[in-house]
Protein backbone atom coordinates (compact mmCIF):
# COMPACT_ATOMS: atom_id res chain seq x y z
CA UNK A 1 0.00 0.00 0.00
CA UNK A 2 2.97 2.32 0.64
CA UNK A 3 3.88 1.91 -3.00
CA UNK A 4 0.75 3.88 -3.96
CA UNK A 5 2.32 7.12 -2.74
CA UNK A 6 4.04 8.14 -6.02
CA UNK A 7 0.61 7.98 -7.75
CA UNK A 8 -0.05 11.47 -6.36
CA UNK A 9 2.62 12.75 -8.75
CA UNK A 10 2.52 10.11 -11.48
CA UNK A 11 -1.23 10.22 -12.22
CA UNK A 12 -1.49 13.95 -13.06
CA UNK A 13 1.94 13.98 -14.73
CA UNK A 14 1.06 11.01 -16.93
CA UNK A 15 -2.38 12.33 -17.76
CA UNK A 16 -0.91 15.72 -18.72
CA UNK A 17 1.08 13.87 -21.37
CA UNK A 18 -1.55 11.37 -22.54
CA UNK A 19 -4.24 14.05 -22.64
CA UNK A 20 -2.48 15.73 -25.56
CA UNK A 21 -2.20 12.42 -27.45
CA UNK A 22 -5.76 11.25 -26.75
CA UNK A 23 -7.31 14.56 -27.82
CA UNK A 24 -5.61 14.18 -31.20
CA UNK A 25 -8.02 11.30 -31.89
CA UNK A 26 -11.01 11.95 -29.61
CA UNK A 27 -11.74 15.64 -29.28
CA UNK A 28 -13.35 17.40 -26.29
CA UNK A 29 -12.57 14.67 -23.76
CA UNK A 30 -9.79 16.49 -21.88
CA UNK A 31 -12.11 18.05 -19.23
CA UNK A 32 -13.44 14.62 -18.31
CA UNK A 33 -9.99 13.02 -18.25
CA UNK A 34 -8.86 15.79 -15.89
CA UNK A 35 -11.96 15.41 -13.74
CA UNK A 36 -11.41 11.67 -13.43
CA UNK A 37 -7.77 12.18 -12.34
CA UNK A 38 -8.80 14.81 -9.79
CA UNK A 39 -11.56 12.63 -8.32
CA UNK A 40 -9.13 9.70 -8.18
CA UNK A 41 -6.57 11.83 -6.31
CA UNK A 42 -9.22 12.99 -3.82
CA UNK A 43 -10.16 9.35 -3.20
CA UNK A 44 -6.51 8.41 -2.78
CA UNK A 45 -5.88 11.21 -0.30
CA UNK A 46 -8.93 10.19 1.73
CA UNK A 47 -7.67 6.59 1.60
CA UNK A 48 -4.27 7.65 2.98
CA UNK A 49 -5.83 10.00 5.57
CA UNK A 50 -4.73 9.14 9.09
CA UNK A 51 -2.11 6.65 7.87
CA UNK A 52 1.01 6.36 10.02
CA UNK A 53 3.97 8.42 8.70
CA UNK A 54 6.21 6.51 6.29
CA UNK A 55 8.63 7.11 3.44
CA UNK A 56 8.73 5.63 -0.04
CA UNK A 57 12.16 5.17 -1.66
CA UNK A 58 11.80 6.04 -5.35
CA UNK A 59 13.29 3.41 -7.65
CA UNK A 60 14.26 1.26 -4.68
CA UNK A 61 17.31 3.42 -3.84
CA UNK A 62 17.34 3.74 -0.06
CA UNK A 63 17.89 7.15 1.56
CA UNK A 64 20.14 9.05 2.12
CA UNK A 65 21.35 8.23 -1.43
CA UNK A 66 18.00 7.89 -3.18
CA UNK A 67 15.05 10.24 -3.47
CA UNK A 68 12.27 9.73 -0.95
CA UNK A 69 8.62 10.71 -0.83
CA UNK A 70 7.42 11.20 2.72
CA UNK A 71 3.84 10.96 3.97
CA UNK A 72 3.40 12.64 7.35
CA UNK A 73 0.88 14.76 9.17
CA UNK A 74 1.90 18.08 7.55
CA UNK A 75 1.92 16.73 3.99
CA UNK A 76 -1.38 14.94 4.72
CA UNK A 77 -3.03 18.26 5.57
CA UNK A 78 -1.70 19.98 2.44
CA UNK A 79 -2.54 17.07 0.10
CA UNK A 80 -6.08 17.05 1.45
CA UNK A 81 -6.45 20.80 0.82
CA UNK A 82 -5.04 20.48 -2.71
CA UNK A 83 -7.33 17.55 -3.58
CA UNK A 84 -10.53 19.18 -2.37
CA UNK A 85 -9.89 22.59 -3.95
CA UNK A 86 -8.80 21.12 -7.29
CA UNK A 87 -12.04 19.09 -7.47
CA UNK A 88 -14.20 22.20 -7.01
CA UNK A 89 -12.05 24.25 -9.40
CA UNK A 90 -12.13 21.56 -12.10
CA UNK A 91 -15.93 21.36 -11.91
CA UNK A 92 -16.04 25.12 -12.35
CA UNK A 93 -13.50 25.12 -15.16
CA UNK A 94 -15.39 22.69 -17.43
CA UNK A 95 -18.09 25.17 -18.55
CA UNK A 96 -15.96 28.27 -17.93
CA UNK A 97 -13.12 27.29 -20.25
CA UNK A 98 -15.53 26.84 -23.20
CA UNK A 99 -14.84 30.51 -23.98
CA UNK A 100 -11.20 29.76 -24.79
CA UNK A 101 -9.51 27.87 -27.60
CA UNK A 102 -6.84 25.16 -27.14
CA UNK A 103 -8.60 23.66 -24.15
CA UNK A 104 -6.58 20.45 -24.20
CA UNK A 105 -3.39 22.47 -23.60
CA UNK A 106 -5.09 24.25 -20.73
CA UNK A 107 -5.92 20.97 -19.03
CA UNK A 108 -2.43 19.59 -19.60
CA UNK A 109 -0.82 22.62 -17.97
CA UNK A 110 -3.38 22.43 -15.18
CA UNK A 111 -2.49 18.80 -14.50
CA UNK A 112 1.23 19.66 -14.56
CA UNK A 113 0.55 22.29 -11.93
CA UNK A 114 -1.21 19.72 -9.72
CA UNK A 115 1.64 17.23 -10.22
CA UNK A 116 4.21 19.86 -9.26
CA UNK A 117 2.32 20.87 -6.14
CA UNK A 118 1.79 17.30 -4.97
CA UNK A 119 5.50 16.64 -5.59
CA UNK A 120 6.59 19.66 -3.55
CA UNK A 121 4.34 18.58 -0.71
CA UNK A 122 5.46 14.94 -0.64
CA UNK A 123 9.16 15.10 -1.45
CA UNK A 124 11.85 14.37 1.11
CA UNK A 125 14.77 15.57 -1.01
CA UNK A 126 15.94 19.13 -1.48
CA UNK A 127 16.81 19.03 -5.16
CA UNK A 128 13.62 17.17 -5.92
CA UNK A 129 11.75 19.97 -4.16
CA UNK A 130 13.37 22.41 -6.57
CA UNK A 131 12.45 20.34 -9.62
CA UNK A 132 8.78 19.95 -8.64
CA UNK A 133 8.63 23.63 -7.71
CA UNK A 134 9.80 24.50 -11.20
CA UNK A 135 7.22 22.17 -12.79
CA UNK A 136 4.43 23.91 -10.87
CA UNK A 137 5.88 27.39 -11.47
CA UNK A 138 6.49 27.04 -15.22
CA UNK A 139 2.98 25.64 -15.70
CA UNK A 140 1.56 28.58 -13.77
CA UNK A 141 3.58 31.16 -15.78
CA UNK A 142 2.11 29.71 -18.95
CA UNK A 143 -1.41 29.58 -17.49
CA UNK A 144 -1.31 33.23 -16.41
CA UNK A 145 -0.63 34.14 -20.04
CA UNK A 146 -3.30 31.73 -21.31
CA UNK A 147 -5.62 34.44 -22.65
CA UNK A 148 -2.68 35.99 -24.66
CA UNK A 149 -4.12 39.49 -24.29
CA UNK A 150 -1.70 42.37 -23.73
CA UNK A 151 -2.26 42.67 -19.97
CA UNK A 152 -2.05 38.93 -19.41
CA UNK A 153 1.27 38.66 -21.25
CA UNK A 154 2.66 41.59 -19.31
CA UNK A 155 1.61 40.08 -15.98
CA UNK A 156 3.02 36.71 -16.99
CA UNK A 157 6.39 38.20 -17.95
CA UNK A 158 6.62 40.01 -14.63
CA UNK A 159 5.70 36.84 -12.78
CA UNK A 160 8.20 34.86 -14.85
CA UNK A 161 11.12 37.18 -14.11
CA UNK A 162 10.43 37.37 -10.36
CA UNK A 163 9.61 33.67 -10.15
CA UNK A 164 12.79 32.84 -12.08
CA UNK A 165 14.88 34.95 -9.70
CA UNK A 166 13.34 33.24 -6.69
CA UNK A 167 13.99 29.78 -8.16
CA UNK A 168 17.60 30.70 -8.92
CA UNK A 169 18.11 31.94 -5.38
CA UNK A 170 16.57 28.79 -3.91
CA UNK A 171 18.87 26.69 -6.11
CA UNK A 172 21.88 28.63 -4.80
CA UNK A 173 20.69 27.94 -1.25
CA UNK A 174 20.36 24.23 -2.01
CA UNK A 175 23.87 24.17 -3.54
CA UNK A 176 25.35 25.84 -0.45
CA UNK A 177 23.50 23.41 1.80
CA UNK A 178 24.91 20.51 -0.23
CA UNK A 179 28.41 21.98 0.09
CA UNK A 180 28.02 22.30 3.86
CA UNK A 181 26.43 18.94 4.62
CA UNK A 182 27.33 16.69 1.67
CA UNK A 183 23.79 15.35 1.26
CA UNK A 184 20.46 16.37 -0.24
CA UNK A 185 18.09 14.19 1.77
CA UNK A 186 16.06 16.38 4.13
CA UNK A 187 16.22 14.07 7.12
CA UNK A 188 19.94 13.51 6.62
CA UNK A 189 20.55 17.26 6.39
CA UNK A 190 18.58 17.76 9.58
CA UNK A 191 20.70 15.15 11.35
CA UNK A 192 23.95 16.65 10.02
CA UNK A 193 22.96 20.14 11.16
CA UNK A 194 22.37 18.85 14.67
CA UNK A 195 25.90 17.47 14.72
CA UNK A 196 27.11 20.95 13.84
CA UNK A 197 27.90 22.79 10.62
CA UNK A 198 29.41 26.22 10.07
CA UNK A 199 27.01 28.88 11.42
CA UNK A 200 27.92 31.35 8.65
CA UNK A 201 26.95 29.01 5.82
CA UNK A 202 23.77 28.09 7.63
CA UNK A 203 22.65 31.68 8.13
CA UNK A 204 23.47 32.57 4.54
CA UNK A 205 21.30 29.66 3.45
CA UNK A 206 18.53 30.90 5.75
CA UNK A 207 18.66 34.30 4.09
CA UNK A 208 18.56 32.80 0.59
CA UNK A 209 15.63 30.52 1.43
CA UNK A 210 13.71 33.33 3.13
CA UNK A 211 14.13 35.48 0.04
CA UNK A 212 13.29 32.69 -2.41
CA UNK A 213 10.27 31.29 -0.61
CA UNK A 214 9.21 34.79 0.44
CA UNK A 215 8.97 35.64 -3.27
CA UNK A 216 6.98 32.47 -3.92
CA UNK A 217 4.54 33.20 -1.09
CA UNK A 218 4.34 36.96 -1.90
CA UNK A 219 5.24 38.35 1.54
CA UNK A 220 5.31 42.09 1.49
CA UNK A 221 8.67 43.28 0.26
CA UNK A 222 8.42 40.54 -2.41
CA UNK A 223 4.74 40.92 -3.33
CA UNK A 224 4.91 43.02 -6.53
CA UNK A 225 4.05 40.20 -8.95
CA UNK A 226 0.97 38.83 -7.21
CA UNK A 227 -1.59 41.63 -7.82
CA UNK A 228 -0.77 41.51 -11.54
CA UNK A 229 -0.44 37.77 -12.03
CA UNK A 230 -3.42 36.46 -10.06
CA UNK A 231 -6.15 38.64 -11.65
CA UNK A 232 -4.81 38.17 -15.20
CA UNK A 233 -5.21 34.40 -15.28
CA UNK A 234 -8.53 32.73 -16.22
CA UNK A 235 -10.76 32.52 -13.10
CA UNK A 236 -10.14 28.82 -12.27
CA UNK A 237 -6.39 29.44 -12.46
CA UNK A 238 -6.68 32.53 -10.27
CA UNK A 239 -8.42 30.33 -7.74
CA UNK A 240 -5.62 27.74 -7.99
CA UNK A 241 -2.85 30.34 -7.74
CA UNK A 242 -4.31 32.20 -4.78
CA UNK A 243 -5.76 29.18 -3.09
CA UNK A 244 -3.00 26.64 -3.52
CA UNK A 245 0.21 27.65 -5.29
CA UNK A 246 1.28 30.38 -2.86
CA UNK A 247 0.59 27.96 -0.02
CA UNK A 248 2.20 24.81 -1.37
CA UNK A 249 5.29 26.52 -2.81
CA UNK A 250 5.50 29.32 -0.25
CA UNK A 251 4.13 28.76 3.23
CA UNK A 252 4.37 24.96 3.23
CA UNK A 253 8.01 25.06 2.10
CA UNK A 254 8.83 27.65 4.77
CA UNK A 255 7.14 25.51 7.42
CA UNK A 256 8.85 22.34 6.22
CA UNK A 257 12.33 23.82 5.84
CA UNK A 258 12.58 26.27 8.71
CA UNK A 259 10.57 24.36 11.29
CA UNK A 260 11.13 20.69 10.54
CA UNK A 261 14.50 20.52 8.77
CA UNK A 262 16.45 23.34 10.40
CA UNK A 263 14.61 23.47 13.73
CA UNK A 264 13.15 26.74 14.95
CA UNK A 265 15.65 29.59 15.42
CA UNK A 266 14.46 32.70 17.34
CA UNK A 267 15.64 35.16 14.69
CA UNK A 268 13.68 33.35 11.98
CA UNK A 269 10.56 33.51 14.13
CA UNK A 270 10.96 37.27 14.49
CA UNK A 271 11.58 37.79 10.78
CA UNK A 272 8.55 35.71 9.81
CA UNK A 273 6.33 37.61 12.22
CA UNK A 274 7.55 41.02 11.06
CA UNK A 275 7.09 40.09 7.39
CA UNK A 276 3.67 38.63 8.19
CA UNK A 277 2.53 41.76 10.02
CA UNK A 278 3.78 43.98 7.17
CA UNK A 279 1.94 41.85 4.59
CA UNK A 280 -1.23 41.97 6.65
CA UNK A 281 -1.31 45.75 6.96
CA UNK A 282 0.02 46.80 3.55
CA UNK A 283 -2.06 44.18 1.71
CA UNK A 284 -5.32 45.30 3.25
CA UNK A 285 -4.62 49.01 2.71
CA UNK A 286 -3.88 48.41 -0.96
CA UNK A 287 -7.02 46.28 -1.24
CA UNK A 288 -9.51 48.76 0.17
CA UNK A 289 -9.17 51.23 -2.70
CA UNK A 290 -9.49 48.69 -5.54
CA UNK A 291 -12.51 48.64 -7.88
CA UNK A 292 -11.41 45.64 -9.99
CA UNK A 293 -12.94 42.64 -8.20
CA UNK A 294 -10.12 40.20 -8.93
CA UNK A 295 -7.39 42.71 -8.15
CA UNK A 296 -9.03 43.45 -4.81
CA UNK A 297 -9.08 39.72 -4.04
CA UNK A 298 -5.41 39.41 -5.00
CA UNK A 299 -4.42 42.12 -2.53
CA UNK A 300 -6.46 40.38 0.13
CA UNK A 301 -4.46 37.22 -0.56
CA UNK A 302 -1.28 39.08 0.44
CA UNK A 303 -3.00 40.28 3.60
CA UNK A 304 -4.38 36.87 4.55
CA UNK A 305 -1.03 35.17 3.92
CA UNK A 306 0.29 37.63 6.50
CA UNK A 307 -2.11 36.13 9.05
CA UNK A 308 -0.80 32.64 8.33
CA UNK A 309 2.81 33.80 8.62
CA UNK A 310 2.16 35.59 11.93
CA UNK A 311 0.45 32.50 13.32
CA UNK A 312 3.21 30.14 12.20
CA UNK A 313 6.00 32.55 13.11
CA UNK A 314 4.67 32.81 16.65
CA UNK A 315 5.74 29.16 17.08
CA UNK A 316 3.54 28.59 20.13
CA UNK A 317 1.21 25.57 20.00
CA UNK A 318 -1.89 27.74 19.67
CA UNK A 319 -0.25 30.09 17.15
CA UNK A 320 0.79 27.32 14.76
CA UNK A 321 -2.64 25.70 15.09
CA UNK A 322 -4.28 29.01 14.17
CA UNK A 323 -1.87 29.55 11.28
CA UNK A 324 -2.49 26.10 9.80
CA UNK A 325 -6.26 26.44 10.29
CA UNK A 326 -6.20 29.82 8.56
CA UNK A 327 -4.17 28.29 5.71
CA UNK A 328 -6.91 25.69 5.22
CA UNK A 329 -9.70 28.27 5.51
CA UNK A 330 -8.02 30.75 3.19
CA UNK A 331 -7.63 28.05 0.55
CA UNK A 332 -11.39 27.42 0.72
CA UNK A 333 -12.82 30.93 0.79
CA UNK A 334 -10.30 32.63 -1.48
CA UNK A 335 -10.75 30.00 -4.20
CA UNK A 336 -14.51 30.43 -3.80
CA UNK A 337 -14.26 34.23 -4.12
CA UNK A 338 -12.15 33.93 -7.27
CA UNK A 339 -14.63 31.43 -8.74
CA UNK A 340 -17.48 33.85 -7.96
CA UNK A 341 -15.61 36.69 -9.66
CA UNK A 342 -15.21 34.36 -12.64
CA UNK A 343 -18.95 33.62 -12.61
CA UNK A 344 -19.77 37.34 -12.57
CA UNK A 345 -17.37 37.93 -15.44
CA UNK A 346 -18.89 34.97 -17.32
CA UNK A 347 -22.41 36.43 -17.22
CA UNK A 348 -21.81 40.19 -17.20
CA UNK A 349 -18.52 40.43 -19.10
CA UNK A 350 -16.94 42.82 -16.60
CA UNK A 351 -15.25 42.65 -13.24
CA UNK A 352 -15.40 46.35 -12.39
CA UNK A 353 -17.47 46.58 -9.22
CA UNK A 354 -18.98 49.93 -10.23
CA UNK A 355 -20.62 48.38 -13.32
CA UNK A 356 -22.25 45.57 -11.32
CA UNK A 357 -25.10 45.56 -8.84
CA UNK A 358 -28.13 43.61 -7.66
CA UNK A 359 -26.74 40.33 -8.98
CA UNK A 360 -28.09 38.22 -6.13
CA UNK A 361 -31.63 38.51 -7.52
CA UNK A 362 -30.60 37.20 -10.95
CA UNK A 363 -27.92 34.71 -9.79
CA UNK A 364 -29.11 33.39 -6.40
CA UNK A 365 -26.63 30.46 -6.15
CA UNK A 366 -23.54 32.39 -7.15
CA UNK A 367 -24.65 35.39 -5.11
CA UNK A 368 -25.21 33.48 -1.90
CA UNK A 369 -21.92 31.55 -2.28
CA UNK A 370 -20.12 34.84 -2.80
CA UNK A 371 -21.84 36.27 0.25
CA UNK A 372 -20.83 33.30 2.42
CA UNK A 373 -17.20 33.57 1.26
CA UNK A 374 -17.14 37.33 1.91
CA UNK A 375 -18.48 36.80 5.42
CA UNK A 376 -15.90 34.05 6.01
CA UNK A 377 -12.91 36.10 4.90
CA UNK A 378 -13.98 39.08 7.00
CA UNK A 379 -14.22 36.88 10.08
CA UNK A 380 -17.93 36.89 10.89
CA UNK A 381 -19.00 34.03 13.20
CA UNK A 382 -19.91 31.22 12.77
CA UNK A 383 -18.06 30.92 9.43
CA UNK A 384 -14.61 29.32 9.26
CA UNK A 385 -12.55 32.51 8.91
CA UNK A 386 -13.74 33.71 12.30
CA UNK A 387 -12.36 30.72 14.20
CA UNK A 388 -8.87 30.79 12.72
CA UNK A 389 -8.51 34.56 13.15
CA UNK A 390 -9.84 34.21 16.68
CA UNK A 391 -7.28 31.49 17.50
CA UNK A 392 -4.43 33.61 16.09
CA UNK A 393 -5.51 36.67 18.10
CA UNK A 394 -5.84 34.66 21.32
CA UNK A 395 -2.40 33.14 20.70
CA UNK A 396 -0.94 36.63 20.22
CA UNK A 397 -2.47 37.81 23.49
CA UNK A 398 -1.25 34.70 25.30
CA UNK A 399 2.34 35.31 24.21
CA UNK A 400 2.00 38.99 25.17
CA UNK A 401 2.36 40.45 21.68
CA UNK A 402 -0.32 43.04 22.44
CA UNK A 403 0.60 45.46 19.64
CA UNK A 404 0.50 42.70 17.03
CA UNK A 405 -2.82 41.44 18.39
CA UNK A 406 -4.33 44.92 18.04
CA UNK A 407 -2.97 45.20 14.48
CA UNK A 408 -4.54 41.83 13.67
CA UNK A 409 -7.95 42.94 14.96
CA UNK A 410 -7.65 46.20 13.04
CA UNK A 411 -6.75 44.41 9.77
CA UNK A 412 -9.71 42.11 10.28
CA UNK A 413 -11.93 45.18 10.60
CA UNK A 414 -10.49 46.69 7.40
CA UNK A 415 -11.14 43.39 5.60
CA UNK A 416 -14.76 43.57 6.73
CA UNK A 417 -15.09 47.12 5.36
CA UNK A 418 -13.58 46.08 2.06
CA UNK A 419 -15.96 43.14 1.64
CA UNK A 420 -18.98 45.18 2.69
CA UNK A 421 -18.05 47.37 -0.28
CA UNK A 422 -17.83 44.31 -2.56
CA UNK A 423 -21.25 43.05 -1.46
CA UNK A 424 -22.88 46.45 -1.70
CA UNK A 425 -21.68 47.09 -5.25
CA UNK A 426 -21.97 43.60 -6.73
CA UNK A 427 -24.67 41.61 -4.94
CA UNK A 428 -27.09 44.22 -3.63
CA UNK A 429 -28.05 47.67 -4.85
CA UNK A 430 -29.65 48.49 -8.20
CA UNK A 431 -29.33 46.15 -11.16
CA UNK A 432 -27.93 48.14 -14.10
CA UNK A 433 -30.21 48.38 -17.17
CA UNK A 434 -28.00 46.42 -19.54
CA UNK A 435 -27.72 43.50 -17.11
CA UNK A 436 -31.51 42.99 -16.91
CA UNK A 437 -31.58 39.71 -18.85
CA UNK A 438 -28.61 37.82 -17.34
CA UNK A 439 -29.11 34.25 -16.14
CA UNK A 440 -27.55 31.97 -13.52
CA UNK A 441 -24.33 30.24 -14.63
CA UNK A 442 -24.35 26.54 -15.77
CA UNK A 443 -24.94 23.77 -13.23
CA UNK A 444 -21.32 22.52 -13.08
CA UNK A 445 -20.03 26.00 -12.25
CA UNK A 446 -22.67 26.33 -9.53
CA UNK A 447 -21.80 22.90 -8.12
CA UNK A 448 -18.09 23.85 -7.84
CA UNK A 449 -19.00 26.98 -5.93
CA UNK A 450 -21.60 25.30 -3.72
CA UNK A 451 -19.10 22.62 -2.63
CA UNK A 452 -16.73 25.32 -1.42
CA UNK A 453 -19.53 27.37 0.20
CA UNK A 454 -20.70 24.29 2.12
CA UNK A 455 -17.09 23.73 3.20
CA UNK A 456 -16.97 27.32 4.50
CA UNK A 457 -19.99 26.64 6.70
CA UNK A 458 -18.95 23.08 7.56
CA UNK A 459 -15.43 24.05 8.60
CA UNK A 460 -16.87 26.84 10.73
CA UNK A 461 -19.61 24.87 12.45
CA UNK A 462 -18.32 21.30 12.63
CA UNK A 463 -14.54 21.58 12.36
CA UNK A 464 -13.87 22.93 15.86
CA UNK A 465 -15.62 19.83 17.17
CA UNK A 466 -14.49 17.03 14.84
CA UNK A 467 -11.61 17.96 12.57
CA UNK A 468 -9.02 19.34 14.96
CA UNK A 469 -7.02 16.11 15.12
CA UNK A 470 -5.62 16.57 11.57
CA UNK A 471 -4.44 20.08 12.37
CA UNK A 472 -3.14 19.09 15.78
CA UNK A 473 -1.00 16.26 14.46
CA UNK A 474 0.49 18.63 11.85
CA UNK A 475 1.15 21.17 14.58
CA UNK A 476 2.78 18.59 16.84
CA UNK A 477 5.15 17.66 14.03
CA UNK A 478 6.16 21.30 13.58
CA UNK A 479 6.78 21.68 17.31
CA UNK A 480 8.81 18.47 17.65
CA UNK A 481 10.87 18.22 14.47
CA UNK A 482 12.95 15.38 15.96
CA UNK A 483 10.07 13.03 15.08
CA UNK A 484 10.69 13.59 11.38
CA UNK A 485 14.04 11.81 11.68
CA UNK A 486 12.37 8.72 13.13
CA UNK A 487 10.27 7.89 10.09
CA UNK A 488 11.98 9.66 7.18
CA UNK A 489 15.23 7.67 7.50
CA UNK A 490 15.70 3.90 7.74
Amino acid at each position, binding site marked *: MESWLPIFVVAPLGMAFFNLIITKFVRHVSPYLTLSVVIFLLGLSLFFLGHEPFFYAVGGWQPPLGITLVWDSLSQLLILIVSIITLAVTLFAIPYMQQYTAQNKFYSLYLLMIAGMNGVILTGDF*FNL*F*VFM*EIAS*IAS*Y*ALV*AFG*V*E*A*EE*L*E*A*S*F*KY*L*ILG*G*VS*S*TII*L*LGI*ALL*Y*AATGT*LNMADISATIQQGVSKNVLFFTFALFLMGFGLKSALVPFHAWL*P*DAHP*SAPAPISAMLSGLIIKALGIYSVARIFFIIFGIVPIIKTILMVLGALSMVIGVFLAVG*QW*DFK*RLLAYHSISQMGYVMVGIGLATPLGILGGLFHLLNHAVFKSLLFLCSGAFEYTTGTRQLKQLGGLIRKMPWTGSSCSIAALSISGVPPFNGFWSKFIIIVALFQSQNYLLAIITVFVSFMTLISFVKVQKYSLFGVLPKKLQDIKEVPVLMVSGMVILALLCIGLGVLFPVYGVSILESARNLMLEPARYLQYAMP
Partner: protein
Amino acid sequence: MLIYFLNSILFVLGLYCLIAKKHLVKKIIGMTIMDYAINLFIILLGYKKDGIPPILLPDMDINTFLQQSVDPIPQALVLTSIVIGLSTLALMVAISLRLYEKYKTFDMSEIRRLHG
Protein backbone atom coordinates in the same frame (compact mmCIF):
# COMPACT_ATOMS: atom_id res chain seq x y z
CA MET B 1 39.15 30.87 -3.84
CA LEU B 2 39.63 33.29 -6.74
CA ILE B 3 37.41 31.21 -8.96
CA TYR B 4 34.49 31.41 -6.52
CA PHE B 5 34.98 35.18 -6.41
CA LEU B 6 34.86 35.41 -10.22
CA ASN B 7 31.80 33.18 -10.19
CA SER B 8 29.99 35.49 -7.79
CA ILE B 9 30.88 38.45 -10.05
CA LEU B 10 29.19 36.59 -12.92
CA PHE B 11 26.08 36.12 -10.77
CA VAL B 12 25.96 39.78 -9.75
CA LEU B 13 26.47 40.85 -13.39
CA GLY B 14 23.44 38.79 -14.40
CA LEU B 15 21.37 40.26 -11.56
CA TYR B 16 22.44 43.79 -12.49
CA CYS B 17 21.50 43.19 -16.13
CA LEU B 18 18.12 41.82 -15.06
CA ILE B 19 17.30 44.76 -12.80
CA ALA B 20 18.84 47.73 -14.60
CA LYS B 21 18.17 47.02 -18.29
CA LYS B 22 14.80 47.98 -19.75
CA HIS B 23 15.01 45.94 -22.95
CA LEU B 24 13.14 42.65 -22.65
CA VAL B 25 15.77 40.60 -24.47
CA LYS B 26 18.52 42.05 -22.29
CA LYS B 27 16.52 41.08 -19.22
CA ILE B 28 16.30 37.55 -20.59
CA ILE B 29 20.07 37.52 -21.19
CA GLY B 30 20.65 38.70 -17.61
CA MET B 31 18.40 35.95 -16.29
CA THR B 32 20.32 33.35 -18.31
CA ILE B 33 23.70 34.62 -17.09
CA MET B 34 22.45 34.34 -13.50
CA ASP B 35 21.30 30.80 -14.17
CA TYR B 36 24.67 29.86 -15.66
CA ALA B 37 26.54 31.35 -12.71
CA ILE B 38 24.61 29.08 -10.35
CA ASN B 39 25.23 26.06 -12.58
CA LEU B 40 28.95 26.85 -12.64
CA PHE B 41 28.94 27.19 -8.87
CA ILE B 42 27.36 23.75 -8.46
CA ILE B 43 29.93 22.22 -10.83
CA LEU B 44 32.73 23.89 -8.85
CA LEU B 45 31.45 22.27 -5.66
CA GLY B 46 32.31 18.85 -7.03
CA TYR B 47 35.55 19.85 -8.78
CA LYS B 48 38.97 18.51 -7.80
CA LYS B 49 42.26 19.49 -9.38
CA ASP B 50 43.63 16.55 -11.44
CA GLY B 51 40.55 14.55 -10.49
CA ILE B 52 39.52 11.36 -12.26
CA PRO B 53 36.04 10.49 -13.56
CA PRO B 54 33.82 9.00 -10.85
CA ILE B 55 33.71 5.49 -12.37
CA LEU B 56 35.03 2.68 -10.21
CA LEU B 57 36.91 0.15 -12.35
CA PRO B 58 37.63 -3.37 -11.01
CA ASP B 59 41.39 -2.85 -10.67
CA MET B 60 41.12 0.35 -8.57
CA ASP B 61 41.67 0.70 -4.85
CA ILE B 62 38.52 2.11 -3.24
CA ASN B 63 40.29 4.56 -0.90
CA THR B 64 42.54 6.17 -3.51
CA PHE B 65 39.51 6.29 -5.81
CA LEU B 66 37.56 8.24 -3.21
CA GLN B 67 40.42 10.69 -2.79
CA GLN B 68 40.97 11.25 -6.49
CA SER B 69 37.55 11.15 -8.11
CA VAL B 70 35.35 14.21 -8.54
CA ASP B 71 31.90 14.36 -6.89
CA PRO B 72 29.33 13.05 -9.41
CA ILE B 73 26.17 14.40 -7.73
CA PRO B 74 26.67 18.09 -8.69
CA GLN B 75 27.05 17.04 -12.33
CA ALA B 76 23.72 15.21 -12.21
CA LEU B 77 22.10 18.21 -10.54
CA VAL B 78 23.47 20.61 -13.13
CA LEU B 79 22.09 18.53 -16.00
CA THR B 80 18.60 18.80 -14.50
CA SER B 81 19.06 22.46 -13.74
CA ILE B 82 20.15 23.20 -17.33
CA VAL B 83 17.04 21.51 -18.70
CA ILE B 84 14.82 23.55 -16.36
CA GLY B 85 16.69 26.73 -17.32
CA LEU B 86 16.17 25.93 -20.99
CA SER B 87 12.41 25.52 -20.60
CA THR B 88 12.16 28.78 -18.65
CA LEU B 89 14.20 30.50 -21.36
CA ALA B 90 11.95 29.15 -24.11
CA LEU B 91 8.85 30.38 -22.30
CA MET B 92 10.42 33.80 -21.70
CA VAL B 93 11.33 34.20 -25.37
CA ALA B 94 7.86 33.09 -26.48
CA ILE B 95 6.14 35.55 -24.15
CA SER B 96 8.44 38.43 -25.14
CA LEU B 97 7.65 37.80 -28.84
CA ARG B 98 3.92 37.87 -28.08
CA LEU B 99 4.48 41.06 -26.06
CA TYR B 100 6.17 42.63 -29.06
CA GLU B 101 3.17 41.76 -31.23
CA LYS B 102 0.81 43.48 -28.79
CA TYR B 103 2.84 46.53 -27.76
CA LYS B 104 5.16 47.00 -30.77
CA THR B 105 8.11 47.55 -28.43
CA PHE B 106 10.64 45.63 -26.36
CA ASP B 107 11.02 48.47 -23.86
CA MET B 108 9.73 47.33 -20.47
CA SER B 109 9.11 50.91 -19.32
CA GLU B 110 6.53 51.33 -22.11
CA ILE B 111 4.85 48.01 -21.34
CA ARG B 112 2.84 49.11 -18.35
CA ARG B 113 -0.89 48.86 -18.79
CA LEU B 114 -1.20 47.20 -15.40
CA HIS B 115 -0.94 49.47 -12.40
CA GLY B 116 -2.51 50.22 -9.04
